[in-house]
């Protein structure tokens, strides 16, 4: 089966005369595509990343490159959940590489819909984000156990995630995860325990002061306590510098999106004095 070698390279630049962020598409190669950018309140630009093939197929090698210029504010989202299709025996794993560079004083909000790994899918995701001085980041990702309605629960072959986040040249978050449901049962209390969905939300602003983080941590910790229940756990971690990470584990997929938005609203207001504007699309 032929595979896709899709690539999308987006540059967001701050246009001082109009006080707006403008999108320049440096490169787009199917199946990845951006149709246009939408202006948001406050001058930010919103871009929906379309995958015209409807999902990620075995052997696909997709890459996304986001350059957020000094002072620009960009919001990037997907048009729907990312389906990871079945891999035939012996087929190469699908690969998705994301690179994001957030320049001084810029802000990137990367808010995709969840990943849905179909039975027998194999997928490798490699992400690297770098933040310059006063650069901000709201970045979430959610992984589902599969197509539960089809009776697929952790039926995928293997998922591998690599996530590197550095601020001002120092690593502040490094994740390396290999999910192999057969060799390493995910129901172990060392991994997911009784939960099926997991999500991470990074909240960063390089150079923000200690009191800012202390106050925000207090607010988000209270929110985590309020939103947690027997079916969903929220936790809050302070990164070594410049940010926080919110983690969620849930027995269902319903409560995670609304919870992420709640954390985002509080954090955006605390770090930028702005309302979090939910991406314009059908949920």
């Amino acid at each position, binding site marked *: 089966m032929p595979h896709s070698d899709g690539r999308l390279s987006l540059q967001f630049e701050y246009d001082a005369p109009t006080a707006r962020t403008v999108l320049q598409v440096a490169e787009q190669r199917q199946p990845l595509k951006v149709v246009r950018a939408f202006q948001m309140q406050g001058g930010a630009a919103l871009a929906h990343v379309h995958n015209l093939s409807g999902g990620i197929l075995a052997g696909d090698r997709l890459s996304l490159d986001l350059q957020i210029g000094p002072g620009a504010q960009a919001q990037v989202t997907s048009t729907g959940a990312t389906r990871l299709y079945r891999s035939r025996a012996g087929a190469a794993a699908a690969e998705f590489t994301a690179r994001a560079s957030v320049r001084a004083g810029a802000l990137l909000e990367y808010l995709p819909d969840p990943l849905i790994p179909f039975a027998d899918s194999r997928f490798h995701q490699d992400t690297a984000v770098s933040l310059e001085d006063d650069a901000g980041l709201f970045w979430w990702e959610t992984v589902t156990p599969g197509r539960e309605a089809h009776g697929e629960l952790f039926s995928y072959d293997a998922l*591998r995630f*690599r996530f590197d*986040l550095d601020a001002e040249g*120092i*690593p*502040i*978050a*490094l*994740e*390396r*995860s*290999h*999910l192999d449901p057969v060799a*390493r*049962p995910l129901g*172990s*209390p*060392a*991994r*997911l*325990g*009784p*939960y099926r969905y*997991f999500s991470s939300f990074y909240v960063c602003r390089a150079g923000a002061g200690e009191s800012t983080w202390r106050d925000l941590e207090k607010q988000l*910790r209270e929110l*985590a*306590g309020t939103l*947690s229940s027997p079916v969903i*756990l*929220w*936790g*809050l*971690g*302070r*990164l*070594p510098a410049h940010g926080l*990470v919110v*983690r*969620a*584990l849930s027995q269902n997929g319903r409560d995670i999106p609304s919870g992420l938005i709640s954390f985002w609203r509080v954090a955006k207001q605390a770090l930028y004095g702005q309302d979090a504007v939910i991406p314009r699309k059908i949920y």
Partner: protein
Amino acid sequence: MLKLMQLADSALPVGSAAHSFGLETLVAEELLDAGSLPSFLRGYLLETGIVEAAFCRAAHRLAGVGWTELNQQLSARKPAQESRGASLTLGRRFLQLFLALEGGPDPGGEAHYATAFGYASRLLGVGEELATACYLQQTVNGMVYACQRLMPLGQQHAARLLWEIKPAILSTAQASCAADVETTAAFTPLVEIASMRHVDQATRLFIS
């Protein structure tokens, strides 16, 4: 060898008995009990265990070169502040105690427990394989001792558990020989969230 045994002993006065690394929350929220503890420990060794072992080995091999970067990397691998802080506190205390007892150059700056153990073992002339296995054993010992205070886990049961998990400790130590700190993976979201939520527990026996 005798010095290494002392360094890996739970009685070493660095404060390791005060930390549960999230276990206290898991037990309080009924996500871990004596029945599930053996499989938990085996899973933990396959995930966090091999990462810590890789860093222990790296510190042994590097002998202080690139020390700051190595410890920054391990800090960035630990999203839960309590567990990261516990590892750093124990690491610095361990290193200070070791250097006071044995002497040798202080690599300076932050030190995680795993990297401090690897570094000290190198100075003692202990091979990295043995050093890594001892580090993992003392980690598992510490977790089991914490569980004895958190759940109905008798001494005989704990001793048998520690006895029977030794092959898993050795295989993790051996597997870490080919593991490098850049790529070795761990997937322990429940343990991480438990550590993040520990500060909110109404009653706490442990610092982490």
